[in-house]
């Protein structure tokens, strides 16, 4: 039963449904199809783990920030606002 359900969606479709799946925005039927598919398909599980790792990497990557000079200028401006 589960096997049959898991074969209703192909890997090629699953990779395009992953964001909606992670966002909890799939309709009930499709969500059950995707979950049944993930029970059967290790490569798709790896793919979804890679997506999660990608999100976590983005969340921790130290991108460039404002220069110290710019921050100092802003703090001055903030200070003079209340004077």
């Amino acid at each position, binding site marked *: 039963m589960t096997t049959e359900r898991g074969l209703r969606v192909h890997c090629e479709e699953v990779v395009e449904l992953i*964001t909606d799946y992670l966002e909890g925005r799939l309709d009930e039927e499709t969500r059950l199809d995707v979950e049944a598919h993930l029970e059967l398909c290790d490569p798709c599980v790896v793919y979804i783990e*890679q997506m999660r*790792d990608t999100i976590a990497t983005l969340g921790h990557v*130290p*991108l460039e*920030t404002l*220069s110290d000079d710019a921050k100092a200028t*802003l703090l001055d401006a903030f200070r003079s606002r209340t004077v």
Partner: protein
Amino acid sequence: MDEERIGVANITVPAPRDMSPAEVELLDRLRAGDEPAFADIVDRWSRSMLSVARGHVSTDASAQEVVQDTWLAVIRGLDGFQGRSSLKTWVFRILVNTAKTRGVREDRTVPMSSLSIEIDDDGPTVDPSRFRGPDDQYPGGWAPHGVPQRWDTDPERAAQNHEVRTLVSAILDELPERQRSVVVLRDVEGCDSDEVCTVLALSAANQRVLLHRGRARVRAALEDYYHRTDA
């Protein structure tokens, strides 16, 4: 019931739907001139602000100026801010408007640049050649050579790696502007989807498409990198 009285004029306005108690407190502190509170949000939000701005303008220096101008506008606007959105949403909306205005101005001096903006709104996000063809026994399944390999890495630690950091910056630079903004706001800044839709004036469905496509491109770049470093 959902109303509160604010300000010296005792004007009754709808209670801000999106301001959490922590944000109301933060706003009070900023209005009272609390410098550490201001320095803290500048530190926390400026990275994402720079990245979103960079998607609209042509140089890093311009992006720095856009973010500075945004904070100056925030300082000027603090007293008038009505709390109809969260503070963060308000700040990022000012940022996007400032960056757009600046971008439009720069386009005039950099002819053709608008033509190079890549449109990437549909089509598969994973190379179709990695899947089995329609005549295969398992059409649409991963082909043997296309199967994704596990990354043996801790994303938090990986993000501190200089090469990964450079790679992520570079791939964000390559994303079409709206994909970049959505990915940065959601995944770098940690905004929820409602905030992103408000900041960028997107429908929820559109936001998800852009997020999906942007994340998939970053994933593909990381996959390439881990493959190369494994080999």
